[in-house]
């Protein structure tokens, strides 16, 4: 009898190893990961990279178009826009990531509790989330920001709170589904207790969703920060941030397009990378994931 050729499945040991493999095959996603890495690098080391300081005003050079010495031009105070974009990136990304981290933690917490303990506690949590979700999230963030006041920390808090409800809902759904699964019953039948059930069965299932949702969440948060700052409710000048730069540039829009264009492009670039990453992660981790 001859040996079998072809066929036979290799046992996939780790689901995440498989996911990483899938992910690396998506060239666009890897490219965006690298670009994002570059953006984060620039933001972190803005002090070293930026040719000018954030507040270095050279009035004589105000409102200059992009040139070799000022790649992105100068603003109305003569400050180099390229440097300000780099430093602004630090603020925008910091706020976005911090806010998303907060909303992830609390979203998972509330969502897990609401999903696992379906009775009164779960209901109460979801009713409260319903109230928050009755207002579009940007408006919610605006009202929160107005209430807390301006400033970096308050902005982070406002954006975090406005994102928690959707996170909660997204986390709760698979938990409800997994709870019904027969292997949960089987585990309970052989005596597994609640912590073990949660750790071994529920968490791996929601981990995939949480990773994808947070990535996309950072993207949305960047836009939210920019919107809030643009409206004057978030980060305050003179702190450079992409949104405040857009707001400042608006007054000069007729003559100096560069004040508005480059910060905007920075936002677009970062958000595109995050969106592509989020989609790629979703495809890699579970092509059946529908959100």
């Amino acid at each position, binding site marked *: 009898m001859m040996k079998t050729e072809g066929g036979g499945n290799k046992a996939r040991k780790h689901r995440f190893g498989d996911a990483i493999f899938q992910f690396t095959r998506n060239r666009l996603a890897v490219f965006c990961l690298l670009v994002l890495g570059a953006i984060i690098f620039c933001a972190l080391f803005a002090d070293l990279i930026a040719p000018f300081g954030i507040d270095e005003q050279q009035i004589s050079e105000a409102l200059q178009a992009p040139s070799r010495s000022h790649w992105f031009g100068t603003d109305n105070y003569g400050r180099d826009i390229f440097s300000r974009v780099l430093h602004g990136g630090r603020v925008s990304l910091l706020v976005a990531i911090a806010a998303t981290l907060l909303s992830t933690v609390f979203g998972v917490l509330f969502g897990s509790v609401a999903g696992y303990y379906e009775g009164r506690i779960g209901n109460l949590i979801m009713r409260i989330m319903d109230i928050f979700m*009755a207002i579009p999230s940007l408006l919610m963030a605006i009202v929160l920001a107005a*209430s807390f006041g301006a400033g970096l920390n308050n902005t982070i808090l406002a954006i975090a709170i406005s994102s928690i409800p959707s996170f909660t809902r997204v986390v709760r759904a698979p938990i409800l589904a997994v709870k019904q699964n027969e292997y949960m019953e089987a585990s309970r039948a052989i005596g597994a207790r609640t912590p073990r059930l949660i750790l071994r069965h529920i968490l791996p299932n929601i981990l995939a969703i949480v990773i994808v949702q947070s990535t996309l969440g950072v993207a949305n948060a960047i836009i939210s920060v920019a919107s809030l700052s643009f*409206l004057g409710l978030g980060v305050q000048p003179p702190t450079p941030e992409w949104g405040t730069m857009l707001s400042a540039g608006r007054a000069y*829009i007729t003559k100096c397009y560069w004040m508005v264009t480059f910060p905007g492009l920075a*936002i677009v670039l970062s958000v595109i990378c995050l*969106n592509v990453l989020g989609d790629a992660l979703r495809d890699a981790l579970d092509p059946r994931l529908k959100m």
Partner: protein
Amino acid sequence: MIEYIIKRILMMIPVLIGVSLLVFSLLHFAPGDPARIILGDDAPVEAIEAKREELGLNEPFLVQYVKYVTKIVTKGDLGNSFKSNRPVTEVILERYPTTLKMAGCCILMMVVMGLPIGIISAVKQYSLIDNLAVTIGLVAVSMPNFWLGMVLIIIFSVKLKWLPASGFYGWNYWIMPAMTVGFSNAASLLRTTRSSVLECIRQDYVVTARAKGQKESVVILHHVLRNALLPILTVIGISFGIMLGGAIVTEQIFSIPGIGKLMIDSINSRDYPVVQGAVLLVALSFSLANLIVDIMYSIIDPRIQIKGAKKIKGAEKYDEN
């Protein structure tokens, strides 16, 4: 069906009450004193105090809230604006039609730009149109829409001088704002349409339809599209709900006198009653939009049964084999 609608509307009431309480509390504990903002920083302390008494700001929080809610429930009175002393209802209703018109334009733009391309993109997957659509869709969804607005102003108002940059006095004032909001929403609709149609086009009943000898165009329109409609309608409905809340930043950029701009201006001037009333209106519109989407779900998909709706007659006895 009617019972379901009534039940849903009744369920909206506690949510709206919750919203009003939430916003009331947030504004109450916000920094900044409305009286001082109205009278100016230079006003004497007594005048400010008197104003605060007049506006009822010195009473305990709960008392203020209960008075507020009672006035709404008994007289339908949302209070008066701190700034102009006009009834809030009047102030809001002055602006709401503009927002409604904007929302209508934007939804139209959104559907016209997003839906057909989404369908074509899915039907001709991997073609040039598909790749282009997916790329443009990705970029458009990643843009803050107010930035798009400013870019449009730069191109069409400043460089080309074709369109006016602000105000809302004629049809040519509508184009750029509608494009701004419509474009980014169209991108989101395109992505949803594409993925929904792609999913349906792979279903077995599509093969069945083709095996009947049906034309491809009918297969797509009648079999695929109608099944793909649910997520599409959801996106359209929710987007419309959000637009009814005033495309806040866009109204700011183009100086459009709608609800969005009203809310921002009122927040900045601490005109609490106006903010509360406007947010309540937005929450109501949003909830109604959600309700309409749910109702449409049950109309379109016969598998989604609303409890209490008429059951198909006589079907019970055949439910064994």
